[in-house]
């Protein structure tokens, strides 16, 4: 029984720590009050979460209980001292209990202020009014009850009223307001520093991301001279023969060039645009390679507006040609398909060429694809290559995102 309880506590702790470290985890916590807590924790700011993590990891398990025991000892001694010095008539046990009560209340208040100091950054009149009001009411009520119990007259109560008010005021001031103000000041300075640092880091990261995204796209956007010269050669040959296909090939080449030039300026494009680009590329290659290349492209209309990083599918199609069909004696077929699967889209580029054996290394093209996926989606997108009989299958898995 005890074992199960401690195990449960440990699980809760770990779960909360996990949420603090990565707020995205909160969505996975099973519904119930544990999830409510998880969501609250996830909603905290980065700095607050960092500090909560530090606090929780420091005061975990036995250390928490030791810290509580220490505080308890200090408060008990304080309560006893106050009794000896000021209230000789009070029973010792009551004094110790009162010391602990007041002490822990103040400690809780401090911790609350410590972790919620943002709420006290500006003078919060409502808050002060509420605290003072509650204090006063408590004081008056306590005074009245005490006076009545002692059988004192109303007049006497009215006489000591100013003292009660001053006492309550001082109490509130000493126990809540003063520590609150001090803590808030110290914390705010610390917080401002941390926030500035975090903001700086975030800015740096954003700049680095933008830079590498631009570099990667530029790298990708260079149209291969091989492609261009060979295609122009094919156009020239067809034109000299007076073949109508010369115009057709030129049209595909124009489509391809226009699309790739506008794509290289955007980070994200719709699947319709990207598949159009891939189709014009494959149409050019088909005329050039003749019987050695067949291709099929299939894009469901429902997925046409879905956004993906530009030129990724084109890179996969180029790889399929370069490492699959071109090295193959018999040539082969390329199929480009896309389907939706639980909020993700799966883009598959299959070629029936020579397969994995003839693609040693990964090629800069695929490295580039992987880097851009990482930049755009972190770990939630992937590129997988697998041997398909015959040939090679490249699969892109990307979270679905539609144009607004």
């Amino acid at each position, binding site marked *: 029984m005890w074992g199960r309880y401690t195990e449960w506590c440990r699980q809760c702790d770990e779960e909360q720590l996990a949420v603090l470290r990565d707020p995205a985890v909160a969505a996975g916590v099973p519904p119930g009050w544990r999830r409510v807590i998880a969501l609250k924790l996830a909603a905290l700011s980065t700095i607050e979460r960092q500090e909560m993590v530090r606090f929780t990891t420091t005061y975990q398990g036995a250390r928490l209980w030791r810290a509580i025991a220490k505080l308890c000892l200090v408060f008990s001694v304080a309560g006893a001292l106050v009794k000896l010095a000021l209230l000789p008539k009070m029973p010792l046990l009551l004094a110790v209990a009162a010391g602990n009560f007041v002490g822990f209340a103040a400690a809780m208040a401090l911790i609350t202020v410590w972790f919620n100091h943002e709420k006290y950054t500006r003078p919060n009149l409502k808050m002060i009014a509420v605290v003072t009001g509650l204090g006063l009411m408590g004081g008056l009520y306590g005074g009245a009850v005490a006076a009545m119990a002692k059988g004192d007259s109303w007049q006497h109560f009215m006489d000591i009223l100013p003292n009660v008010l001053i006492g309550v005021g001082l109490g509130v001031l000493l126990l809540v307001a003063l520590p609150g103000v001090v803590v808030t000041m110290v914390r705010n300075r610390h917080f401002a520093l941390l926030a500035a640092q975090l903001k700086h880091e975030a800015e740096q990261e954003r700049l680095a991301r933008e830079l590498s995204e631009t570099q990667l796209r530029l790298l990708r956007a260079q149209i291969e*001279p*091989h492609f261009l*010269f*060979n295609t*122009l*050669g*094919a156009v*020239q*040959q*067809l034109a*000299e*023969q007076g073949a109508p296909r010369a115009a057709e090939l030129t049209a595909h080449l124009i489509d391809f060039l226009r699309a790739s030039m506008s794509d290289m300026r955007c980070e994200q494009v719709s699947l319709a645009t990207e598949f159009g680009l891939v189709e014009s590329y494959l149409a050019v290659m088909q*005329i*050039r*390679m*003749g019987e*050695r290349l067949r291709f099929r492209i299939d894009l469901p209309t429902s997925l046409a507006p879905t956004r993906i990083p530009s030129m990724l599918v084109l890179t996969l199609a180029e790889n399929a040609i370069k490492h699959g069909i*071109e*090295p*193959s*004696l018999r040539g082969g077929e390329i199929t480009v398909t896309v389907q939706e699967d639980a909020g993700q889209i799966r883009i598959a580029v299959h070629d029936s060429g020579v397969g994995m*054996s*003839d693609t*040693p*290394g990964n090629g800069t093209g695929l490295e580039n694809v992987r880097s851009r996926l990482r930049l755009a989606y972190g770990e939630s997108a992937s590129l997988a290559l697998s041997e398909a009989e015959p040939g090679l299958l490249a699969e892109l898995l990307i979270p679905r995102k539609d144009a607004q």
Partner: protein
Amino acid sequence: MTVTILVAEDEPLMRERLLGMLALAWPDAQVIAAVDNGLDAWDACLEHAPRVVFLDIRMPGLSGLEVAERIGRQAHVVFVTAYDQYAVDAFDAGAVDYLLKPIQPGRLDKALARLREKLDSQPMDVSAVVRQVKAASPAPAREKLKWLKASVGKQIRLIDVEEVLFFQADTKYTRVVLEGSEALVRIPLKDLLGGLDADRFWQIHRGTVVKVTAIRAAERIDAERMQVLLRGSSEVLPVSRSFTHLFRE
């Protein structure tokens, strides 16, 4: 004597273009074969022994560079490439002939003029330049064959390429001879060539490839012909004239 030409280019339109331009610019030369991959190119070289060979660099099977290495001094080689800067630089430095795609008539005339001057002399060996280009090339080397699958009765036998003494062409199949046994593989020898390391497996005949370390001796039969004696097999393999240079001291 009519000059014989072989054209190897994998894209049909580019092949047609080169053939058409050659017919105009060099009407008395004879194109004996036009092929679309490196393996057929090498096979046609062995079959027809052309004087001049136009080789596209990027081709399936064997690259133009690999075919040129095998050709050695047996033909005048002209490389054809769309854009291989590293290769073009080396060709320039080594005075190797090349054409840039798309081939323009003026440029072809110049190359042919140079070629005609050289026709009477022995072809230059381009393999040194080719090795240099291959070393500098950003494209990784073709993966070499490690295993062969051969059916023996109902079984599929896996053969380690390193254990093979020699390969012999047998129409559509290849006879694979090991020490003490042999098998038949369902791939023509021509198609196996691309997967064999040319430094360790020497082709000594259009239909024979032998592992260099399995060669015990090569002996002269007469002024033109040679034969190879093996370790681990009593078979004697003939060396055809195109390959006797391999054994010249």
